[in-house]
């Protein structure tokens, strides 16, 4: 266990993480705009404090993270390499999942994401129970406010509380699911729901990553010690569009939130020249990562079994079907 970190050291660590996430995702946006990447992506610009604040409070040696469609920040905060992420989105052999997963289906060293809202919640519960059985390790499962629409989430919360799964549910409530504001999707107060399934919940504004890290550490310690799930319910805001489509939110609202962007606020807590140096270093690393990833060899098709119709037949028999 590491000793308690000074606020100054923590500020540098968190700023570096958040600025890295921002830089990586702005770069991804540019790569898509330039047509150098295909498919789609969901960036977490504006929400980086959630990733940096919470993920870093876990122990990479024995813990795990379940993330969502909006997973780049969580992945990077977990220690994932920008190059591997870029390579994944470029469809390169060196990608996190060899180009198979793309932006939202990642797996690396105890980190998992999938593109189905709430579908990973019970999987995270099961993984947490497997850690409990193993005698060490806990996990965090990220969720969005929109994901509270899915029933599987409640089944999972109930089971987690009932069976004592060492799991921290982390809600990133950014007020929207895709184009739809929270109040158009949900009745009652979302943050009150986990408690109705026996899960103690702490609500927090996620703008100050230092405070958030301290809170996450305390909650994770609690989960670790009694193997009971907790919920950390964060209020945050995404400053970019949902995915590659246009942003249809009220521009004034977005503009107002941009004024309160946690990243520059955190930067102001560092000496200007130190922040500049960090930024330069990040810019250099990210540019290198892009260059390296883009020139990596393209991913190879998996050696998949042939279609059922062309399964190897006894040689005396005629062959049928056509593999596309």
């Amino acid at each position: 266990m590491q000793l308690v970190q000074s606020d100054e050291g923590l500020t540098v660590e968190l700023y570096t993480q958040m600025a890295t996430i921002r830089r990586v995702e702005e770069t991804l946006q540019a790569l898509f705009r330039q047509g150098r990447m295909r498919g789609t992506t969901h960036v977490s610009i504006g929400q980086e404090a959630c990733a940096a604040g919470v993920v870093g409070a876990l122990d990479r040696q024995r813990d795990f993270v379940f993330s969502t469609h909006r997973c780049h920040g969580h992945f990077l905060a977990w220690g994932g390499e920008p190059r591997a992420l870029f390579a994944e989105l470029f469809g390169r052999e060196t990608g996190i999942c060899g180009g198979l997963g793309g932006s939202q289906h990642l797996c690396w060293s105890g980190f998992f994401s999938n593109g189905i809202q709430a579908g990973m919640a019970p999987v995270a519960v099961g993984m947490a129970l497997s850690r409990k059985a193993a005698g060490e390790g806990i996990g965090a499962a990220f969720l969005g406010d929109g994901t509270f629409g899915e029933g599987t989430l409640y089944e999972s919360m109930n089971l987690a509380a009932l069976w004592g799964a060492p799991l921290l549910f982390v809600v990133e409530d950014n007020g929207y699911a895709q184009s739809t504001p929270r109040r158009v999707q949900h009745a009652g107060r979302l943050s009150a729901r986990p408690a109705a399934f026996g899960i103690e919940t702490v609500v927090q504004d996620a703008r100050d990553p230092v405070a958030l890290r301290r809170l996450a550490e305390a909650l994770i310690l609690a989960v670790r010690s009694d193997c009971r799930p907790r919920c950390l319910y964060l209020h945050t805001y995404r400053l970019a569009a949902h995915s590659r489509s246009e942003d249809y939110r009220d521009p004034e609202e977005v503009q107002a939130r941009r004024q309160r962007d946690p990243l520059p606020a955190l930067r102001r807590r560092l000496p200007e020249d130190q922040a500049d140096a960090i930024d330069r270093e990040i810019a250099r690393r990210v540019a290198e990562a892009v260059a390296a990833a883009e020139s990596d060899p393209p991913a190879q098709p998996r050696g998949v079994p042939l279609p059922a119709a062309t399964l190897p037949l006894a040689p005396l028999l005629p062959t049928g079907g056509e593999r596309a």
Partner: protein
Amino acid sequence: MTPSANGAVHGHGGGLTFRASLTEAMDGLLRGDPRVLILGEDVLDPYGGAFKVTRGLSDRYPGRVLATPVSEAAIIGTATGLAIGGLRPIAEVMFGDFLLLAADELINHAAKFRAMYHEQVTVPLVVRAPAGGGRAYGPTHSQSLEKHFLGVPGLKVVAPTHLHDPGALLRAAVADPDPVLFVEHKLLYPLELRPSEQRGTPYPTATVRAGDGDPGVIIFAYGGGVRWCLPAMSRLAEAGVSSTLCLPSRIDRFEPWTWWDLAGRPPAAVLVEEGTAGHGWTAEVAAQLAEAGDAPSIRRVTGADDIIPAAGHLEDAMLPSAEAVVAAALALVR
């Protein structure tokens, strides 16, 4: 074929697009029938749904186009209740991949009610589902899962192409007393309609012929499969093989023999679907041809037995292609 997320009403050639045909049909339905309503995730203006098919409708028909929570089971279940209650709901599932979350509501509820309740109710429910790959959306947003919803008593599955009249098919589905799963391939949205010869009502089968001379091959396909078949037919014609493409719009029930006969009993049949290998729509088509005896020789062209990779070039390698259709046809006729 250039897919675009924000297709205009008219394609580059000035004709109505597949997407606009559907939007116009819903507009007309909402205008003409007070019982019609639309529900689904993010269907409101200005967003207008993930594939923009409902765009313009909520502004024009406030209160009758409803944005739902991210609750696929409840969307379909609630729409089922609305349908039993006398309304004509059109539910949109954002990606066909998410139909699995509503499988119980569709199969154990909506599809069963009419029969199980001894014809005391009908369930005029339409579930629209954009499906299929080709846009590098990865393993959970690119699938053609409709094969898992075939063979369900009481559930119709309709898959338009731009060779049909998609709007007319949607109107037929809304008028249908039984639940209809309406599968729209994502890549068809921006295409201009190009209606071809069609027979059968209310869910006609479209046919296209290419090449001259004796009937060489019949190609059975549906929905997005059309995009490989048309170029394949041109190449086959160049190679001196004439072909007939047969595209049913209703795919849960389909009599391939009838169409094989109408096509002049060509000696070969190529069966095409985008879904993964095995146990798909083409299996039933092949089985029916085989059962009747005196069948053409048959090959299936399907997706591989694998997840759909996110990387565009891997996805392309995993899905069928015009080349695969041509190769299958030539292997059979030579």
